[in-house]
């Protein structure tokens, strides 16, 4: 069976190389048009696929509203499906940066992937706009002149929730989250505000990501009898937890709170079990703002569906980039001027206008929302113009 | 009396509630060929498997040069000098005859750590292999891939591989099975030639061959030793004739 590898076979395999290389490399030769090269590295498959699509839609909507141009130049998109797989993240980011030579990298949803992207962006000095991932580090220790975020930090909604829950006279609270950095940061943000306001976190419970066998924890909560529970899960985990919490009969005796991700994009699956739940986020489904209404209408017209917070974040990513490009008339070579313009821009977002902190994270209002029907309805402003403390950022 | 090499003492083996071997005792001496006869299911193969270590005994002892080896693994017994052949040909089919034997010889001098030397470069292994091939009468087929050998030749290779390990005990499980008359004759001649230097246990159905070569014969029935002694004693034994020979020719397995 060990039959030497003859020349014909070798030729076949080199043909393979050539084929493999030629295919993805083709777009490189579109230089004449001088388009702006936008790299979208987002999840298009797997659990977060719908989020990736919403962000892409939002981004493209903003570009289309500007006549398909940003800063007077046409846009060319390069997309990579990051599969929410952190292990492949550096490689995928390199595909866009080194193979496709993009001018800006936009991504992503998953925090682990985004952290890896931030490192690559720092190393290669590529402009990066994060349209979702909330890991505190991105605008904390990893902050950099070329890294921006148009979404939130994990700390923000949770910190706001700490104040809300203290205001609602809860004294003893149990927290439950997945044991990974976003979960831990959410709990930390909550705890900071809640304990500052005089509350006490009786027990912090974590379960391995993405484990969804909640029953032992629910039993534990029932035995501890806290005044309330602060929880962070997302996607399928959030659906299952909220349902399990309700069927365990805990909903009526121990109220459940959490950052908005627990009830965003998951209400269809959660059904009645989520009804009335209070969460905090920088967006609500029925904001009474002109920009929000026009955005919703335009989005519905373009994509035949209602936008969510992720679409807003994608939309704002494009707006932020546009603000920078407008300053330099589309000349991405003038990096310093462009970044300066982005730093000082006020983004007229469907969530309400926001500016950026020194660490490039939005300074924004966090809303208290209540689940009614299939919507997260605005209740009040939980924290006005809340800025992430950007711990560890030296910039 | 010749030197006692291997012996079983009250050896038993149960499968579930059934005894495949029950209280078997026998001795093997250097220079003597000890044949085991018995109908199908008499426990002859189990006996060999117990002696070679392929099966652990349920009770009893196996002594090798005075030492109790019943707990030893098959490879340890083999390295100590107990070689066996199989009833069903058990070779490396994709290797050549020479490679089969060379690998067998290698087990005596493992050299496992010499990973930077070529296995084919050791003259002692080559000589041992060639000697075994010569003895087994396969010299002309030395470089043929084993899978393409005739059945009889594969049986010869089976023996050659054991010989290449330079054993002092040979446990041979029906080496003549399926051989033609000519091949049988040369195998019988080989057994005779090997006897002076080895202690041999031969399990065989071919009566003529057994009586031609055996120094001692043990007859087993239903896992137990019926009678043991020189060929003449066995031939004349009433008990053996009643239990076994009386039934006429044993059928082939």
């Amino acid at each position, binding site marked *: 069976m060990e039959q030497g590898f003859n020349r014909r076979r070798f030729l076949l395999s080199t043909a393979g190389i050539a084929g493999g290389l030629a295919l993805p490399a083709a777009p490189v030769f579109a230089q004449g048009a001088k388009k702006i090269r936008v790299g979208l590295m987002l999840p298009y*498959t*797997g*659990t*977060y*696929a*719908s989020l990736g699509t919403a962000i892409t839609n939002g981004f493209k909507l903003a570009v289309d509203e500007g006549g398909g141009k940003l800063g007077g130049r046409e846009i060319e998109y390069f997309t990579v499906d990051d599969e929410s797989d952190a292990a492949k993240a550096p490689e995928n980011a390199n595909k866009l940066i080194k193979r496709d030579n993009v001018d800006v990298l936009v991504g992503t949803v998953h925090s682990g992937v985004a952290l890896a992207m931030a490192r690559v962006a720092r190393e290669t000095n590529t402009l990066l706009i994060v349209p979702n991932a909330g890991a505190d580090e991105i605008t904390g220790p990893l902050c950099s002149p070329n890294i921006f975020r148009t979404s939130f930090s994990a700390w923000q909604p949770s910190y706001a929730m700490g104040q809300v829950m203290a205001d609602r006279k809860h004294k003893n609270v149990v927290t439950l989250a997945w*044991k990974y950095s976003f979960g831990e940061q959410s709990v930390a943000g909550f705890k900071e505000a809640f304990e500052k306001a005089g509350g006490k976190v009786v027990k912090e*419970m*974590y*379960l*391995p990501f*993405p*484990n*969804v*066998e909640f*029953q*032992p*924890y*629910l*039993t*534990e909560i*029932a*035995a501890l*009898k806290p005044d309330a529970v602060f929880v962070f899960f997302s*996607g*399928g985990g959030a*659906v*299952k937890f909220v*349902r*399990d919490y309700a*069927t*365990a*009969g*805990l909903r009526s*005796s*121990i109220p459940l709170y959490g950052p908005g991700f627990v009830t965003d*994009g*998951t209400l*269809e*699956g*959660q*059904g009645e079990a989520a009804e009335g739940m209070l969460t905090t986020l920088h967006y609500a489904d029925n904001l009474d703002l002109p920009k929000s209404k026009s955005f919703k209408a335009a989005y519905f017209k373009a994509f035949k569906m209602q936008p969510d917070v992720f679409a807003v974040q994608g939309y704002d990513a494009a707006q932020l980039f546009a603000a920078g490009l407008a300053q330099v008339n589309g000349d991405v070579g003038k990096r310093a001027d462009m970044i300066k313009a982005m730093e000082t821009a006020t983004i007229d977002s469907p969530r309400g206008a926001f500016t950026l902190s020194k660490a490039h994270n939005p300074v924004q209002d966090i809303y208290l929302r209540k689940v009614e029907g299939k919507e997260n309805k605005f209740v009040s402003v939980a924290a006005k113009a809340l800025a992430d403390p950007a711990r560890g950022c030296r910039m | 009396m010749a030197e006692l090499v291997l012996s079983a003492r009250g050896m038993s083996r149960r499968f579930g509630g059934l005894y495949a071997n029950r209280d078997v005792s026998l001795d093997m001496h250097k220079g003597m060929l000890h044949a085991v006869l018995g109908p199908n299911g008499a426990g002859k193969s189990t006996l060999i498997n117990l002696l070679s270590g392929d099966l652990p005994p349920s009770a009893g002892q196996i002594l090798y040069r005075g030492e109790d080896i019943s707990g030893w693994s098959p490879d340890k017994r083999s390295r100590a000098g107990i070689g066996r052949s199989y009833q069903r040909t058990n070779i490396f089919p994709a290797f050549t005859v020479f490679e089969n034997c060379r690998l067998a010889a290698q087990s005596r001098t493992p050299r496992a750590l010499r990973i930077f030397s070529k296995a084919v470069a050791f003259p002692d292994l080559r000589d041992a292999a060639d000697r075994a091939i010569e003895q087994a009468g396969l010299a002309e087929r030395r470089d043929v891939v084993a899978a393409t050998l005739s059945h009889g030749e594969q049986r010869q290779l089976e023996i050659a591989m054991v010989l290449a390990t330079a054993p002092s005990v040979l446990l041979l499980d029906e080496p003549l099975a399926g051989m033609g008359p000519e091949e049988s004759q040369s195998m019988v001649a080989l057994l005779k030639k090997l006897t002076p230097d080895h202690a041999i246990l031969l399990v065989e159905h071919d009566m003529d061959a057994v009586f031609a070569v055996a120094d001692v014969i043990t007859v087993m029935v239903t896992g137990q030793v019926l009678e043991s002694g020189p060929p003449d004693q066995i031939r004349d034994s009433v008990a053996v004739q009643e239990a076994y020979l009386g039934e006429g020719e044993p059928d082939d397995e």
Partner: protein
Amino acid sequence: MDFSTFLIQLLNALQYGLLLFLVASGLTLVFGIMGIINLAHGSFYMMGAYMAFALTALSGNLLVAILVGIALSVLIGFLLEWALFSRLYKRDHLDQVLLTYGLILIFEELRSLLVGDDVHGVPIPELLSASIQLSETLSYPVYRLFMSAVCILLAIVMYWLIRHTRLGMMIRAGSSNREMVQALGINIDLIYRIVFGLGVTLAAFAGMLAAPVSSVYPGMGNQVLIICFVVVVIGGVGSVWGALVAALLIGLADTFGKVIAPDYAGLAVYVLMAAVLLWRPEGIFRRI
């Protein structure tokens, strides 16, 4: 932990263990009898859950959905066995492993193409939607108890099927030696087809039964697959009885691991596995 909490945790452990048994039983059957490591087993579980979702949405009734789903699963099992697996029995185990590995990718993408990547809930049937008050604050959903009862019932049925029926006898014979059984005039091809169909159906049924409490989401099959393998490894290849014991042990290790050593909860199950394998390299029980 007070005593009543302990008892409730014990109930949680049993309930989780029984569900694991249900998922893993099909895997261990296919594994033990056909000698196939079916990596796609988790995909069948996922398929079942999505069928429960889609068919409940269509018919409005979980029971109808489950009945139709079972019929579809049997069909899919037969088809796969006929089209793919039956051609590989003479091959190496490795080929079968890789085939099922390829099938995982295909099923996962088909799911994405057909149903999308959203998370969906499946309503608990009206009849079983009540809860039983266990302690002052905690109540236990009747549906979970119902699931456990179904799992126990299935365990009994499988035991009876394998021990006391002609089909079970042929299955047991088939697991020891394919050629020999064939020589006895038993239609081994048919037996294999039935066993594989049974394996697929058990996995899918577990998915359907669990859908109302687990909700349905992408990647749910992979999550359950590995833990099922651990069940089979601990229980011993092909042993349904072993799978039951192993699944219950895992339920206990996982539940109390989470309570006692939350930082290392994920490892508890594997420590259990290593301990069992140290004691018995081939699992607690061998064969059916």
